[in-house]
């Protein structure tokens, strides 16, 4: 920048800078808030659950089939003398000497004790995924509301 340019630059600092209306920021920000709300709505509409409906149906059918198979395959219900988790629970119920309750309990437990542990694993994993999926969906929704406000 030469001397003349510099002098001209100093002089130019005196030019008038116009200002928009006093509520300019408010107007712009209200348009931006509306824009953000629209963007957020699209984000929620585009949200894909971790597990799709199709997968849930397949999982459910697989579980039902497994249960049917176990029931039809003729496995005798355990009478409380078996080993394992459910047997341990039924054993402890016996100790309470509640004969009627314990007989109903044992019947119920007998069915469960015949179910292989893999079925419990599938059920637990599915429930865990479903809980995580619902939590993520709710968290995303809450986060979007916070950002818009």
């Amino acid at each position, binding site marked *: 920048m030469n001397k003349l340019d510099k002098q*001209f630059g100093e002089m130019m600092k005196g030019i008038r800078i116009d200002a928009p209306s006093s509520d300019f920021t408010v107007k712009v*920000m209200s348009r931006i808030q509306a824009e953000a709300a629209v963007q957020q709505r699209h984000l929620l509409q585009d949200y894909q659950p971790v597990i799709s409906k199709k997968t849930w149906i397949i999982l459910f059918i697989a579980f039902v089939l497994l249960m049917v198979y176990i029931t039809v395959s003729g496995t005798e219900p355990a009478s409380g003398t078996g080993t394992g988790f459910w047997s341990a629970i039924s054993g402890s119920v016996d100790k309470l000497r509640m004969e009627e309750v314990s007989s109903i309990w044992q019947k119920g437990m007998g069915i469960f004790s015949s179910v292989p542990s893999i079925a419990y694993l599938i059920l637990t994993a599915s429930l865990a995924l479903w809980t995580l999926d619902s939590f993520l969906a709710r968290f995303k929704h809450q986060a979007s509301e916070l950002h818009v406000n």
Partner: protein
Amino acid sequence: MNKTEDQYYIDAVRKGNVQAFSYLVEKYQKLVYTLALKLLKKPEDAEEMAQDTFIKAYQKIDTYEGKSKFSTWLYSITYNGCISELRKRRIEFKSLDDRQISDQDEQKMHDYYRETKKEDQEKYLNLALERLPEDDQVLVTLYYYENQSMDEISLISGLTVSNVKIKIHRARKKMHELLHEMLHEEIYSLL
């Protein structure tokens, strides 16, 4: 420091803090509006263009890479928006050579001169600036008032750096000429 401050708010907006954008609106609204007014002339058009500029900037904030100043990026949105608007209206800029100072304008300048003499050079300065072609007014404002470099102005306007240099040089010469006409020898006592 300025860039860091801007970057802080830009990052906040990107993370979803919409309200952080109001800092950038407050900071740059005058210059954005001034540039739009110089090109579009009507205050209501300039205000609408300034609003649209900030909305576009918000929508495209993820595309701002930080290679240039945020102001440079913002002014380029303003400039391009105004040029598109003027193209729609089929208004073309006249070059300095095409433009003739009308007798009416000259009389206005003399009136100002008689009224204010040395006391109000700002009026002469703004009057001289207004006599320049619209795009030259923007280039001169960006270069001398906003201290944007030739490279940055090239980014904003889409003109080559050498073209920007030539245009600013010619605009400065023209403004001197106009001021000389208005103030005769008095302007040179100021410099």
